């Protein structure tokens, strides 16, 4: 009973199995993500009451916080996949790691942009060098470096392995950056104004936030599976299972 999980994971390591699994799961993940996202966005923008300090500007939180969480969560998932890919040389793990990077970069960008848009009306500035913002910016550079390194190799698998190594190096560095920037701020700048949301969040504000968190996670799965499937077609093109796929897809694409 207890070993069906590793068995299932092991079977997922096979590209055709993963391809089919991802193809089955993706529409549901995407549909659910869109539905939950729409509900969360509507509730956050129109149903939740205005914050007594920040008025309606605080509503950006329903996009900003889930995106920030995803930018870190995706890096964690990517680190796990990169580790598995490097240590056990499992190709699917490498592909999952590489295809997670652009999604993570997208969420990091959204976090930075929406944070700026929130900061300007509330705290009067588009940018400030506080610990969280600076380390989020560095995280964006790390994501871009991973994508750049992966694409700079002629050989796809070699590039994936090098980039997975970079993922692990970056994983160690992310807490170091945050930690050191925190010190730097307290060493030099005194107390900077902190970008913290409402301190006691009431239920009517909490549930849209949590719903959006769930929606973004499901979206990540949907997007990841779409990307992995697209990549498998290219990289496994010589194999019989892809050719069969092609004859079945005739006329569909």
């Amino acid at each position: 009973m207890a070993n069906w999980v590793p068995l299932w994971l092991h079977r997922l390591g096979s590209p055709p199995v993963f391809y089919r699994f991802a193809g089955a799961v993706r529409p549901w993940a995407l549909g659910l993500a869109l539905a939950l996202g729409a509900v969360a966005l509507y509730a956050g923008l129109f149903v939740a009451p205005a914050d007594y300090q920040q008025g309606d500007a605080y509503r950006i939180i329903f996009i900003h916080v889930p995106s920030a969480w995803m930018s870190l969560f995706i890096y964690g998932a990517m680190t796990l996949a990169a580790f598995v890919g490097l240590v056990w040389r499992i190709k699917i793990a490498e592909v999952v790691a590489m295809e997670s990077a652009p999604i993570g970069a997208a969420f990091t960008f959204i976090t930075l942009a929406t944070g700026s848009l929130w900061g300007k009306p509330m705290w009067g500035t588009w940018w400030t060098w506080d610990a969280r913002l600076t380390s989020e910016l560095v995280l964006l550079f790390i994501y871009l470096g991973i994508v750049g390194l992966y694409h700079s190799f002629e050989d796809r698998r070699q590039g994936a392995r090098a980039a997975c190594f970079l993922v692990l190096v970056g994983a160690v560095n992310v807490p170091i950056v945050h930690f050191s920037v925190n010190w730097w701020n307290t060493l030099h700048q005194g107390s900077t104004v902190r970008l913290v949301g409402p301190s006691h969040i009431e239920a009517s504000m909490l549930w849209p936030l949590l719903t959006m968190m769930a929606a973004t996670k499901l979206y990540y799965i949907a997007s990841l599976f779409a990307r992995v499937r697209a990549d498998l077609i290219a990289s496994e093109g010589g194999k019989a299972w892809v050719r069969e796929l092609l004859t079945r897809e005739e006329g569909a694409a």
Partner: protein
Amino acid sequence: MIPGSTASACAAVLRRDLTLAWRRRGDIAMPVLYALIVTTLFPFAVGPEPALLARIAGGVVFVTVLLAVLLSLDQLFRADIEDGSMEQLMLAPQPLALLVGMKVLAHWITSALPLIVVAPLLASMLRLPAAAMPALVLALAIATPLLSLLGAVLVALTAGSRRSGMLLALMLLPLCVPVVIFAAGAVAAAQEGLPWLAPIAWLGAGLVMAVVLAPLASAAALRIAMES
């Protein structure tokens, strides 16, 4: 030294790299000239007012030296990969990590050390007070090998690909951030007359870890990038 032993192999790699660098002595002057030019441009850019210059002097000198080291880092493995010596090193019975460590040491001696010697001159051009000089030199002495070691790991990763260039800078920046923060913090504290040993100690700890881990990581990265 017994020929064929690890120690003699390391000495041989070090001697070889230093000799090769000495044959192109002109190239050693390049980072120094670059740093000199950049430092000279700053008073033109921000105005010659001594108070302002003194405030930014430590940071400017530090970042300039860092960039100069970064620019020369790209060449760390390139020549050896192109003429096939890198593969010989990878096939050697001695641990690749040690041999790579020697290459990084040679690189530091030829590119960073001249910069460290010149740094007090650059800093005084920008009116850094004498009280902060020891902090600056010490911070550079610890931070530059740290950056060389970290940079070596990233250069090793891009070793197999043709188009590194700016990609290296992009990848190196996140790793540089903590180093710059602590080093510039030490210099700034020294300028204010505050105790500045703590950030230096952090840098020292980072250096110790890098000396142990970075050669191993570089060797692993080289094997990953070179297998084709």
